[in-house]
């Protein structure tokens, strides 16, 4: 990871979101879809923690070389401050952070699922999969039309795309889970990637496990530091040999995880259906086929 004082090249509204492009060649060189940036907040405010954002685009060549774009969903103090940032301001940026999505080697049909601002890293992933000759289909879910992120971009990247909004203002009315079974069937998806709200991710994880489809998910968990120091952003993950589970940091061992190894009950705060570590160990789940 590197820390840079990055100049804002461009800041603009995109629907309900704000897109910020910064100049950061050292970071842009290395970044891969799924990874994120940690942005410092202004010094004299009551909100002091760094805020984390998945990377949406990284330009490594051409006129915009060395730039990174990330998307801000202005819902709280820090994101609202960022939504006001202008070109030529400087941001305190640490990145790239976290693990990236893995590309499949042999499998070809990739289903990419995003809710809201989850589309930002998912599009980045989609581009890289297309460059590698993979088939990409998408499901995009959001509250309302303004919250569907760059739908034209989504259409451009995908063979087929299903857009669903809670109020039906764009695409069909409903949510991701309403269309998931039919899309899985229709596209013959062999690999699933998702970035969505936790309950949605959990349901997608169940559907993939049921159908034995390998999946990867970019999770969101509150991060007090983003750089691995504070241990507040942990996810309960079953060990590869099933001998127990650990609390892994989403900023170091994630944010991309194999959902088949996440202990969803524990992570969602439900009464765990399985005891801490069952005497026979956890079922060993198929890891990423690569």
């Amino acid at each position, binding site marked *: 990871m590197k820390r840079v004082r990055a100049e804002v090249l461009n800041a603009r509204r995109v629907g309900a979101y704000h897109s910020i492009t910064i100049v950061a060649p050292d970071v842009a060189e290395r970044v891969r879809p799924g990874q994120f940036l940690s942005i410092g907040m202004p010094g004299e405010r009551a909100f002091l923690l760094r805020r984390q954002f998945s990377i949406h685009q990284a330009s490594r060549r051409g006129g915009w070389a060395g730039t990174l774009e990330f998307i801000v969903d202005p819902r709280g103090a820090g994101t609202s401050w960022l939504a006001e940032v202008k070109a030529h301001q400087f941001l305190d940026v640490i990145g790239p952070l976290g693990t990236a999505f893995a590309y499949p080697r042999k499998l070809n049909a990739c289903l990419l699922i995003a809710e809201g601002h989850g589309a930002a890293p998912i599009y980045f992933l989609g581009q890289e999969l297309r460059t590698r000759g993979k088939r990409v289909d998408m499901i995009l879910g959001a509250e309302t039309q303004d919250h569907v992120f760059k739908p034209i971009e989504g259409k451009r990247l995908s063979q087929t795309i299903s857009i669903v909004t809670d109020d039906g203002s764009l695409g069909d009315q409903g949510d991701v889970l309403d269309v998931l079974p039919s899309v899985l069937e229709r596209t013959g998806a062999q690999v699933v990637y998702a970035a969505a709200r936790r309950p949605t991710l959990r349901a997608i994880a169940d559907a993939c496990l049921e159908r034995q489809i390998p999946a990867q998910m970019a999770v969101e968990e509150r991060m007090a530091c983003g750089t691995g*120091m*504070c*241990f507040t952003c942990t996810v309960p993950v079953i060990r590869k040999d099933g001998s127990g589970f650990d*609390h892994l940091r989403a900023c170091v061992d994630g944010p991309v995880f194999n959902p088949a190894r996440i202990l969803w009950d524990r992570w969602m705060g439900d009464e765990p259906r399985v005891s801490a570590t069952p005497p026979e160990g956890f079922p060993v789940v198929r890891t990423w086929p690569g």
Partner: protein
Amino acid sequence: MAGLIVAKQTVAVDLGGIRLPHPVVAASGCVGTGRDIPSLVDVHRLGGVVTKSLTFAPNRGGPTPRAAESASGLITATGLQNPGVESFVAEDLPRLVKANVPLFASVTGTTVEEYIRVAGALHRQPGIVALEVYLSAPDDERGGEPFYARPERIAEVVGGVSRLSTIPVFVKLPPLLPDLVEVARQCIRLGAQGLTLIDAAPGLAVDADRLRSELAAPVGGLSGPAIKPIALAAVYRVANVLPRVPIMGVGGIRTGEDAVEFLLAGAWAVQVGTAILVDPAAPVEIARGIVAYLREKGIASPADLRGRLRVREAAPEAPA
């Protein structure tokens, strides 16, 4: 390593026989366990490091959410996640030792016996200069209340660890004890050689929109600038009564000036926690800020600032 020497100032400090190259130490739990401290934190330029609090066996900690931002602060409850003493010694300690920085090992447990076992496993490790006793862990033998809630349990832990340890023992005390000064005195009588003031204050964050607590715990520790005045008051009150006991002041330090405030109040050195999470370069910047202040005021060293806070004449100690 050599202390920072700038013109006529030196910023090395002596904490009752423990020499720190400068008075800014990384607080427990804010630079991870040691095996993967991000390179952005220049560990070998720190004045010292306090390790994550260690239990005897590995502890995976509590459920998330473990953190909530609060006005000028942070509330956390990680629930003692740590690799356990054996794994720490094998994986984390070598990397910390390589950084050649004074190490304080934070000792904790959920029984008195565990505190003593952890201390036993650490006090002879090369590179560790002192132990720091963390008392906010739940006491299994007293219904899960924190150890600091009962003076007799503090006594058992501090006495047990101090009797066993061949290296100095610092005790980290929470801020809101009704008789903080007396507890501090008692710790020294039991054999502790220093104090860390303060641990985080109990804090609750509420999500009114969803009618629930923000943290799983639900009560966590409040740290950061919000608690600085509380920490300063604790340092001031204890230092006045125990002027010869090394005190590391901690609570909301972000700048060199903040650190100087603690030294004036009576601290011998300071720790920085939340500020590192926000800015990995903070400890070195704070040390530089102390140097700049000393130079500007024409003061030779941090020890010359210690306890020099001027207060109005004849003010009796304020009631707790």
